[in-house]
């Protein structure tokens, strides 16, 4: 079987840090999609976790019938404080839940939303799963790489933008889709994507196409940890494609049957 193995060159394929688009693109738009991530960065030892953080971590643990269930939201809270999963954050979770650091680390490294290196103020995710990719997600992602001069899972030097190509985010009727701090940006083009990141870097407020004004990545992580930010009422109920079928039904006066007048046997219908 050895003839099947294509040796992976260290760069651009398989390079953990990613490369700018011009290098990473291997032939007409295809790029390396997955690679081994490095383990936790133990280089930085300082931590922003305070007694107040520990108190909130304990609060999360107390919400569940069994405390360990709180681990995922607790790690979200760690990220909201630290900007990534840190060794200190892992220790804190482990101590509260009476687990080993290895247990917690094993969980933290399983899920893609937990980041092992510092994330910028804005996490920009471009969907490059099949449907978004072919409808333009590849072009959006490539343009952003070139525009920002960073590769996958890398952060701009000003600490503003972390770029990542992400998997399907359940918005395929709005393809190509981009997420900024996990808010939807629908029907993205290379041009509006670069415009958006420029605005973010310039400190201009940016609004989701059907959500809220974009908060920082750390603030988003805090909401995911279960601490609401009181902004659920921002944004519309639904837009565009979400309403298409409903609008057509309204135009034609189509509706579900009237419960008072049900035909007994659907098989005998029209």
């Amino acid at each position, binding site marked *: 079987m050895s003839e099947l193995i294509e040796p992976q060159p260290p760069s651009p394929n398989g390079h953990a840090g990613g490369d700018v688009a011009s290098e990473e693109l291997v032939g007409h738009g295809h790029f390396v999609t997955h690679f081994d991530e490095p383990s936790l960065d133990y280089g930085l030892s300082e931590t922003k976790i305070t007694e107040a953080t520990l108190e909130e971590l304990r609060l999360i643990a107390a919400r569940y019938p069994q405390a360990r269930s709180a681990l995922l939201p607790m790690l979200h809270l760690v990220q909201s404080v630290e900007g990534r999963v840190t060794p200190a954050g892992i220790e804190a979770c482990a101590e509260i839940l009476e687990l080993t650091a290895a247990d917690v680390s094993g969980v933290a490294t399983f899920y893609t939303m937990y980041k092992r290196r510092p994330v910028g103020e804005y996490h920009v995710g471009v969907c490059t799963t099949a449907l978004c990719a072919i409808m333009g997600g590849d072009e959006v992602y490539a343009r952003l790489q070139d525009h920002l001069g960073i590769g996958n899972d890398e952060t701009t030097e000003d600490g503003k933008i972390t770029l990542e190509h992400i998997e399907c985010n359940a918005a395929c009727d709005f393809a190509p889709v981009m997420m900024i701090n996990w808010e939807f940006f629908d029907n993205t083009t290379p041009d509006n994507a670069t415009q958006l990141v420029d605005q973010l870097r310039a400190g201009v407020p940016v609004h989701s196409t059907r959500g809220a004004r974009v908060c920082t990545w750390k603030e988003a992580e805090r909401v995911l940890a279960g601490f609401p930010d009181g902004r659920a009422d921002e944004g519309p109920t639904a837009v565009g494609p979400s309403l298409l079928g409903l609008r057509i039904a309204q135009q034609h006066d189509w509706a*579900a049957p009237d419960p008072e007048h049900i035909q007994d046997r659907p098989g005998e219908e029209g």
Partner: protein
Amino acid sequence: MTDPLTPVLTANWADERAWKLTNYERRGGYDALRAALQMEPAEVVAVVKESGLRGRGGAGFPTGMKWSFIPQDNPKPKYLVVNADESEPGTCKDIPLMMASPHTLVEGVIISAYAIRANTAFIYVRGEVLHVVRRLQQAVREAYSAGYAGNNVLGTGYDLEIIVHAGAGAYICGEETALLDSLEGRRGQPRLRPPFPAVAGLYACPTVINNVESIASVPSIIANGADWFSSMGTEKSKGMTIYSLSGHVTRPGQFEAPLGVTLRQLLDLAGGIREGHQLKFWTPGGSSTPMLTDAHLDVPLDYEAIAGVKSMLGTKALQCFDDTTSVVRVVLRWTEFYKHESCGKCTPCREGTWWLVQILKRMEAGRGEPGDIEKLLDLCDNILGRSFCALGDGATSPITSAIQYFRDEFEAAMHTPAWELFPYERSTIFVREPAGAGA
């Protein structure tokens, strides 16, 4: 005769601030809960059983029957877990539902938890949808304030805690037993069955796990009756459901219709495939369901008819690809998805998806080698049915079905790169070709 479209779950999506409790109640929201609380839990189960509701998350298992598997003589606590981890490529119905009308789900949660006598319910929502999490958190708080949840629900003596739990990015957690492990604070890896979750699920206690749309359908069934629900749909696939049309269609979007509508009917409503192009292939229910072609436009989109053409209704995620699309490229991307999302627990899936990607990558580049098609099929044969969970099976679906319908393209991959056969910019929605240039 039932109308072609039947908005029930989507009926209030155009309402101003439909996510607010007062606006939901104005449309009769939580009346079904009041009605359910007047019934015995077993009666609620019976009504849902009688309605014929089947799981809307992919497998199509009868919801009421799933509920009836909960052993009520078991002294352990019972749990309801809503699978809101919508991640199957192409699937995009639960997210807009929870964004627009989270109370439809929350009311369904309370009725369903009451039916199975659970005092704790979880909504496990994928973490990558921040605003949906906000709306769910707020809806649950509103439900508590109104007395619909918490201690002594509406004065009946029934207690229910509802916990909104955000995941952290892992497709595998849509698999119900992996979801349970994740909800227990572990790596999301599937469990061996039996025991089934109904017997030993969350914390080894009896647990029901249902998809968002399944649970959200429950209030309408209680409010309007099992006969009303089963008056829609086909013989064994009852009720209305949300179809998600995406890809190269003129107007993609969500369509709530009785089960059994055809893709041709939905495409007609959506303005057809984008101008100047033809449908090439489509998925009936996400990337894990074998692809179909224009020969299947008139197959009723219900569980039985789609199974009859060797695919699965899945999540009703109708991803349409036109004649500009390289099937090899699309299949590679889906395979890379499965490789990325494989949890690593079992060898056929973990190693197999890796090998599949190696072969498909060189095929995309026109550097396929003699025997590669057979090798792909052989690998698929060694993954399908030999993996721990359905992820491995799903990973083989796009490959085997694509080779079945488009073998020529895989043959061409021995010498010509996909981007030469199908220039990639033509598949994007940015480039508008001059009139008459369609393939």
